[in-house]
């Protein structure tokens, strides 16, 4: 089992009020699943993604990743888990503007303290997998939206993570480019990656095999295709 959430809660204090972003979430995700999390804004889907992605910690409950309890870890331990286990793809790409595509893709390897000589080869392989070898030495502002998202996907893949987390990965792309990007995710799925998509677009969610719907911080439905 890759992900196990039991009785997960997340509460924010906003002024004197408590906002219950997540309430009693139980969820299991297996290796090799392709899942979408859906829900209207404010439903808690971003909060859930942040916790699953180890960017945030729950207020209560248990989160086990690959059987390891991670809900109580400190900053640096979470950073190590993100480095080793999780690849993020963001709606706004979040590439570093001063670095080339190559350097952006290389960065997670550097933080994972990979061997420098092995690094370049790995970066080229990964860029090839997303079809971007020719644009490797361009900066993000010299790339199209679709190309930028491919760089971001390559960056997410470079450390061979157990889980790819994509937050509205097609949200800033036109629908044709969006379909191309979804094609890449389908390919990754076929090669055995575990993918969790966060989206509010039905047609995007339909690429996945399991759809979780959130409403007011609770799981409303959990449907497998």
């Amino acid at each position, binding site marked *: 089992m890759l992900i196990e959430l039991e009785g997960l809660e997340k509460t924010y204090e906003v002024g004197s009020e408590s906002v219950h972003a997540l309430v009693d979430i139980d969820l299991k995700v297996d290796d090799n699943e392709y899942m979408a999390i859906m829900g209207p804004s404010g439903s808690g889907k971003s909060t859930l993604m*942040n916790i699953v*992605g180890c*960017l*945030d910690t729950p207020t209560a409950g248990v989160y086990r990743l690959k059987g390891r309890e991670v809900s109580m870890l400190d*900053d*640096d331990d979470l*950073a*190590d888990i*993100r*480095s*080793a286990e999780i690849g*993020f793809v*963001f709606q706004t790409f*979040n590439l*570093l503007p*001063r*670095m080339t595509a190559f350097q952006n893709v290389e*960065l*997670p390897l*550097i*933080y*994972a*303290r990979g061997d*420098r000589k092995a690094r370049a080869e790995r970066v080229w392989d990964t860029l090839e997998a997303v079809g971007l070898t020719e644009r490797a030495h361009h900066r993000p502002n010299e790339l199209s939206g679709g190309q930028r998202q491919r760089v971001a996907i390559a*960056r997410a893949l470079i*450390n061979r993570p157990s889980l790819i987390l994509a937050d509205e990965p097609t949200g800033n792309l036109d629908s044709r480019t969006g379909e191309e990007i979804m094609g890449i995710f389908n390919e990754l799925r076929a090669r055995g990656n575990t993918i969790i998509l966060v989206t509010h677009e039905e047609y995007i969610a339909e690429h996945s095999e399991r759809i979780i719907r959130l409403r007011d911080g609770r799981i409303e439905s959990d449907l497998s295709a």
Partner: protein
Amino acid sequence: MDFRETLLSAMRALRSHKLRTMLTTLGIVIGASALVAVMSLIAGLNSSVAAQFQSIGTDIISVGKYPWVQMGDEEDYWRRKDITLEDSEAIGRLPSIGLVAPNIHTRRNVSHGGTTMRFTLVSGSTPEYETIDNFPVSEGRFVTSMDVDRRRQVVVLGADVAAELFPIVDPLGRDVRVGGKRFTVVGVLEEKGDILGSSQDDLVIIPISTFEKAFGSRRSVVVDAQPAEGVPVDEAVDDIRQMMRVRRKVPRGEPDDFAVNTQDDLMSSYESLTGVLYFAMTGIVALALLVGGIGVMNVMLVSVAERTREIGVRKAIGARRRDITLQFLVESIILTMLGGIVGIGVGAGLGFLVKALTPLPAAVTPTSVALAAGFAIATGLLFGVYPASRAGRLKPIEALRYE
């Protein structure tokens, strides 16, 4: 994250804000250049003073109306009663004193044939002057006691005067005119070189008795003395002062109305001069580094704020707290190091300028360069710690949400 990558990343960040980087380092540039320039000035002073000390005898005691380092009103010194040849003889009779050489000075034209040297220093003295004041002769002889006794019209030429008036022929035995009076050249002095741009070789020495006959005797005498063998300079100075106070009838409790100069006086006034320079420099440098450091901290805080999202992304893809902290710390150190390098360049330039345009032989010292570099780096470290640790502590989700 390895150090090479951290370094490259910091360089990239600084390159993308060239103007800001330059302005930020200004304080550091000023601090570093002040440090290097002032220390090169002091090094120049040191070497010229060392030369000066070498040209005077080391244990010389010089008694006169004027102190070597004058403080206050010139007129107060000028009004003092003259020192006389009798005073000189009395000093010479003191058991604690070895040799004495009374000497008097004026400035006159010195000429030979059609060539004239204007306002050359003319010194009248005795044979002992050669030893006490260190005037070795390169050719011929110095003034002898016979010359003094007989008031001979003889002259010993300084190296410059000899070279100027006798470029080709040997000056020995030739006649020159000193202040219009005829003198026969009996010797030429060894070259002493320049101190702070003024030549020490533009002088002539004649017997003191001849001097008084030719140029008048109503001048205050300077008595240069050497302590007797084995007598410390301090003791000799005390003896001279006591005797001179009695001779000049200085009432008890009144200050001396004459000056007893030693190298120690010169040394201590020199040390107080460099002390002031060091003090002023330390002030300027400390202030500039403080201002520079605050500037660096400010810019680094701005930079952290601007790059909050970048920090969030870096953390999301696996950067630890210390990776981020180190990245910003290295950035601020590079920032101040650049300032230090430019400052060292500017300071060295100022030093060379002083050397080229003034007689002071300013010299850039490795110590000052090392100090400037060290202070620059320390400033970057000190003022970079806070912004850098703030960057490192940012929470990834908050940083990622930052617009």
